[in-house]
């Protein structure tokens, strides 16, 4: 379909089912404006924010996730899809909070001090956003003070750290130890990643889990959020 034809679709003229299907396609095609509009229409039609989230957005992004895993979609396409998702989430997030629905999750992520590698971290951010998480990316070369400050400011559920150098990996432990010191460790799910890490290392430094790639980072974050909700509920 050409862009011109796509522009022609009047989302309002679609039935609920048709609209949901169209939104799945629009997520797949990374069309942020359309997703924002679709989200608004469903809300106007009286849908609850949780229902919009689950049936329109999350279900649509699941299709994207599977096709990314299977090598059908390319990184730029997933990036666009994640941006579209982010657009929808910005509308839903405050409404979800009002209804008291459990949030999907919020994360702070950064590359540790001394390390400037960020391609992997950026992919994780993208995939998390695609899965509906709110992500604050604090960037590269971050000392423990800035991690702590970001945690205090944003009060996330998850702390993500990335390191690609064997000389900077140990710094993840410095951050975790500081959390322990301040009695904050149990307030956060700590997930770590980066090519030279492995599961043993993650365990040794006291992280909750090591994530070998961005897809696993999504799965792991979802699992831990589920556990957290169960514990709270």
């Amino acid at each position: 379909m050409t862009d011109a034809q796509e522009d022609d679709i009047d989302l309002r003229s679609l039935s609920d089912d048709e609209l949901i299907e169209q939104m799945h396609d629009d997520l797949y095609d990374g069309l942020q404006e359309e997703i924002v509009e679709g989200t608004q229409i469903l809300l106007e039609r009286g849908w609850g924010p949780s229902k919009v989230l689950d049936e329109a957005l999350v279900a649509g992004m699941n299709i994207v996730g599977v096709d990314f895993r299977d090598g059908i979609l390319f990184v730029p396409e997933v990036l666009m899809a994640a941006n579209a998702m982010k657009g929808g989430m910005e509308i839903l997030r405050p409404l979800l909070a009002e209804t008291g629905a459990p949030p999907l999750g919020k994360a702070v992520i950064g590359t540790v001090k001394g390390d400037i590698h960020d391609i992997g971290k950026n992919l994780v951010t993208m995939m998390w956003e695609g899965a509906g998480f709110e992500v604050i990316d604090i960037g590269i070369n971050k000392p423990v003070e800035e991690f702590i400050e970001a945690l205090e400011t944003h009060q996330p559920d998850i702390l993500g750290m990335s390191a690609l150098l064997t000389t900077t990996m140990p710094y993840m432990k410095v951050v975790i130890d500081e959390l322990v010191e301040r009695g904050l460790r149990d307030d956060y799910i700590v997930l770590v990643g980066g090519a030279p890490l492995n599961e043993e290392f993650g365990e040794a430094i006291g992280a909750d889990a090591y994530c070998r790639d961005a897809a696993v980072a999504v799965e792991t974050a979802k699992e831990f959020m589920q556990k957290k909700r169960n514990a709270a509920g």
Partner: protein
Amino acid sequence: MEIVRPEDIERIHEASLTILEEMGIEVMNDAALALLENAGAEVDHSSGMVRLDRGLVEQALTSVPPQVTLTPRNPDHAIDLGGTHLNFSLVAGPPNVHDRVQGRRSGNYTDYCNLVRLAQSLNIIHLIGNQPTAPQELPAATRHLDTYWANLTLSDRVFHATAIGEQRTLDAIHMCALARGVETEALVDSPALLTVINVNSPRRLDDALCAGLMTMARWGQPCVITPFTLMGAMTPVTLPAALAQQNAEALFGVVLTQLVNPGVPVVYGAFTSNVDMRTGAPAFGTPENTKANLIAGQLARRYGLPYRTSNANASNVADAQAAYETEMALWGAVLGGAHLVYHAAGWLEGGLTASFEKVILDAEILQSMAEILQPIEFGEADLGLDAIRDVEPGGHFFGTEHTMERFETAFYRPLLSDWQNYENWEAAGSEDAYQRATGIWQQLLEGYAEPPMDAAVREALNDYVTRRRGEIERVGLDFE
């Protein structure tokens, strides 16, 4: 080999100057910012953005030497970077190691030492690059002392200073001087070692590596300025754009070395490949990587700089993929006129693993490459008309005088290839090249002899390491 027309090289050059003048490079190091500003660059201190006008670039290019000789403790193993010289380095940087006997594991000091011993045992490996594997069990702040010690005592080849900050760099320079039995000042005019400074593409030079660059330049040692760019992630996806950006970043580093110390040797580094657009994972030995290796050579020659590139692959095992990707990258490097090929032996998994078997496989490839590059000059005897006359149609040449005089050295003798027929190969155990490589590295390690070192020199080195380890443990390092 020139695959881009001279006028198109100029277009890339012009685009690079535009990048430097209009967009700039972000520098994360204050001392470098001050130096650049003094030299007339436009510096935005709040963002660290530096814009260089073309005059500064051209000025720097007038003082760069076209060639540099690096002399390790054994002067017979000195290497020349420039001219018609080609040098191969051992793999550098992997956090893991692999061999067929013990499998894959985290890098450690025992494996580190064995990889250095292997390099020392193979004449085709001319230098030791950055740590062939990271000895992860050693404390990160003093690890460099242990690796320098191993490089200097287990080998007598040129090696690479870990240029993460000033102190690690200085330790390497002092230890090289001690190993050569000279004052450190003597190295200023007779450089001994090198390092690689990666630019954090796009357009950023990090703090620690800036400090390392400036220290090397101050002490007269060459930096290899290498924007390591993965197209798609770190540059646009089109090759000309990637090359223009890479070239701008390399030139920026070159300018910085010349501002620190005009005339200091510096090497033009290039390492451009692409990511897998389906996952973001780096790919190597691709057609794009090969083309980039070729064209970057044209650019280096345009500036009269020695040229470094790499020999890499993305395979997870030392298999056929590892071999053919390696050959692709290497042909690009060699035909591109590289003077220095990093990661020439032992690289696997996109640089995440150093493989013992791959060292042997690569040594075979590199030796063959070196053989191909032997100049073809021949006299009447080589033309062999007499030998041809001597043998009647249907005869053979095994017994001719011409053959008898030459047979032992006439052809390249492989290290790894097996040329037996199928039945004999089967009778001998049906080992493929991968399996045979294990036996070869094991044999090399068994037969390895430490290169002799004067007892006083050894003691001086040992004292240095002990003293510095104590200092670092007490007061720390500049970049930990």
